[in-house]
């Protein structure tokens, strides 16, 4: 295994040297002009995207930050500036604290489980030449194409306490003691949501990891096999370090999905209930901003979500930084 980062230096020089001398000088003379022409063209091409980005991303985000300093119902022309009051209220709002805890719990549980299982399945599918692995991949990927509302409906049926798939199976296996009110028990409901999230995203991450693993040269495995490395050893010494970059990228995805996906799922499946025990940050923000007429307060929660996901992504990215390995 070698660690190369850039293409061999001088490779471009070599080609220009072999080229005819007048040709190279002509190219040298024309290059700046074309670059200037390019800049204008590139800018013109980028402009629509930049404008859209500014109008639909930057401005609204700034608005969120600005509104979080006001008390505003969302309709009236009157906004009252209250400084950091909204943020101060957040600190003694038990519901907010619980929503925050739930979001963090979902983030940790879903990330660990999805990533672990995704890696495991991807490794098995790429390395073990499993029969019918295309079918498995297809089946595991399907949930990712489904709308979250459909997933919520599916899981409502799965978790149904009387005729649900889960309790029905337990009854069939005479494990009646393990039956639960999956969406009604306040201690379990969050994990029920977490499981649905894992089910939804597992296939996606598995395919991502598989793509990374497929590009690892076979020789590395052959060589290590000759040296007597077991499959587990190969996984930790070869596979994992070589797909480290894709792993890092997916970690950021996990942060985003824990914040966004959980909202849609919770809203469609439990509505934050029973009694707020499955409330997550975004659903609480939605409730405050749109049904409790405290738009400014909702935006303050939005700012916290922004800062939180930004910070976590940054920390994760810092903590997992390694020298990129290449093969």
């Amino acid at each position: 295994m070698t660690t190369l980062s850039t293409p061999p230096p001088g490779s471009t020089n070599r080609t220009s040297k072999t080229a005819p001398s007048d040709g190279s000088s002509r190219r040298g003379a024309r290059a700046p002009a074309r670059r200037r022409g390019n800049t204008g063209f590139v800018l013109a091409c980028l402009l629509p995207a930049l404008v859209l980005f500014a109008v639909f991303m930057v401005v609204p985000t700034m608005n969120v930050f600005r509104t979080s300093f006001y008390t505003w119902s969302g309709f009236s022309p009157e906004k009252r500036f209250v400084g950091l009051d909204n943020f101060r209220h957040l600190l003694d709002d038990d519901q907010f604290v619980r929503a925050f805890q739930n979001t963090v719990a979902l983030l940790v549980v879903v990330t660990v489980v999805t990533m672990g299982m995704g890696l495991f399945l991807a490794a098995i599918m790429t390395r073990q030449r499993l029969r019918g692995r295309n079918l498995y991949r297809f089946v595991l990927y399907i949930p990712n194409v489904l709308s979250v509302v459909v997933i919520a409906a599916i899981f409502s049926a799965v978790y149904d306490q009387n005729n649900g798939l889960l309790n029905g199976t337990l009854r069939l296996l005479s494990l009646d003691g393990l039956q639960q009110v999956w969406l009604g028990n306040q201690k379990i409901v969050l994990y029920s949501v977490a499981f649905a999230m894992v089910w939804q995203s597992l296939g996606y991450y598995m395919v991502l990891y598989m793509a990374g693993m497929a590009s690892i040269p076979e020789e590395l495995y052959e060589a290590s096999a000759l040296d007597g490395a077991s499959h587990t050893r190969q996984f930790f010494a070869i596979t994992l370090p070589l797909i480290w970059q894709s792993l890092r990228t997916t970690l950021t995805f996990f942060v985003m999905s824990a914040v966004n996906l959980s909202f849609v799922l919770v809203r469609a499946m439990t509505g934050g209930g029973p009694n707020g025990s499955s409330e997550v940050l975004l659903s609480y923000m939605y409730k405050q901003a749109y049904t409790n007429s405290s738009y400014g307060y909702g935006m303050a929660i939005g700012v916290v979500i922004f800062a939180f996901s930004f910070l976590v992504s940054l920390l994760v990215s810092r903590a997992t930084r390694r020298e990129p390995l290449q093969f």
Partner: protein
Amino acid sequence: MRRSLVLTGAVVTALGLLAGCSAGGDSSDSGKTTLKVAALEGGYGRDMYTQVIKQYEASHPDIDVQLQISKSIEDEITPNMKAGKYPDVVVLGQGRKAALTETLIKDKALEDLTPVLKEKVPGENTTVGDKLTKGIVGNLNTNPYGTDKTYLMPMYYAPTGLVYNKGLFEQKGWTVPATWDEMFALGDKAKKQGIPLFTYPTAGYLDSFFFALLADVGGEQFYKDVMTYKKDVWKSADARKALDITTKLLGYAAPATVGYANEQDFTKNQQLILDNKALFMPNGTWIVGEMADAPRAKGFQWGLTPLPAVTAGGKRYLTTSVESAWVPSAAQNKDAAKDFIAYLYSDKAAKIFAKSNAIQPIEGIADTLTGENAEFYKLYEDPSVSALVGGFASTAPVQGVDIKATLFDTANSVISGDTTEAKWQSALNDASEKLREAGD
């Protein structure tokens, strides 16, 4: 090939942008006034509105009524309202999840409709105020700030209470309990036969239960005190008694209740009544239409009863849900809007509405009803039963405080044992205090 792809992409993007920018322009060049009406498509359907509007347009040729109607009307009109384009008339009650009406009340963004009460109904000789049932105007539901100014016109009213299967009671020879003692005795009796006494679709439906209970326990003044956040009202003996009764009742709840008490599954709780797997649930007259296609036990018959009395012979209240029509103060055609609202109370309109079971609070209309509805509305004729209208008073919004959620949703935790009655009481007290301070 590649270039053509790029080109296609660019064209599609450009078209998308253009489509996004080209919002429909106004087309009111014909000299007609365009009256924009937005209505919630509730259990009554949309036909009745189109018919009423057709009649109205026939008698008012200079007005063009544009109807926007939807099951989630809030989602459709809110974006435009934020952009300053307000509908002229909105038919939408309080107590909806999106709380649009409540928000506008808190904002003081509604037009004063007191003059409409004195206006003559178009084409008739009586005023709107004279046509309305007595007592339907002047409560917190129509005069949300507790003054004598009416901002919300009561459109349709429906009694809510405890819904049960009349057929089952006949088969078993049970009588519908008239006091809470009888209620709990029945609960024990039914339990032996494997039927739980109580369930609710979602905790939010407890509004039909709680408001009436508060008035049953402490009288109308106490109810008003609770709704206007009187100091320490939740620490009073009456409040405690109401919570005592509720906690005891929740102890009789069907085990499935909490697990199904969400937007996705609440009909399964309603189904418990149809299947004789629970005796009572708080609900309203719309349940008949809502569950019309659901399978049911043999001999099933819808019944509705007020809450049992606290003491024998005591006064009982029926929480009455009232949908309202209102005019945003930012509306363009306010005068036309007021005239249109007055028309909604005309005999012609009332007849069309009543055909769709939308019963307006107009004197004498309840006598014309048939079927289940006749029985439901007959409850008001019992001299010991009174209608109870209204809800929590509006205050300036308070961050993180939602007293309805504290009052209703906590029931889930009481059933599952995650909280205690004492904690519930103190949480209610906290929320009430914060709201009172905001109202002052």
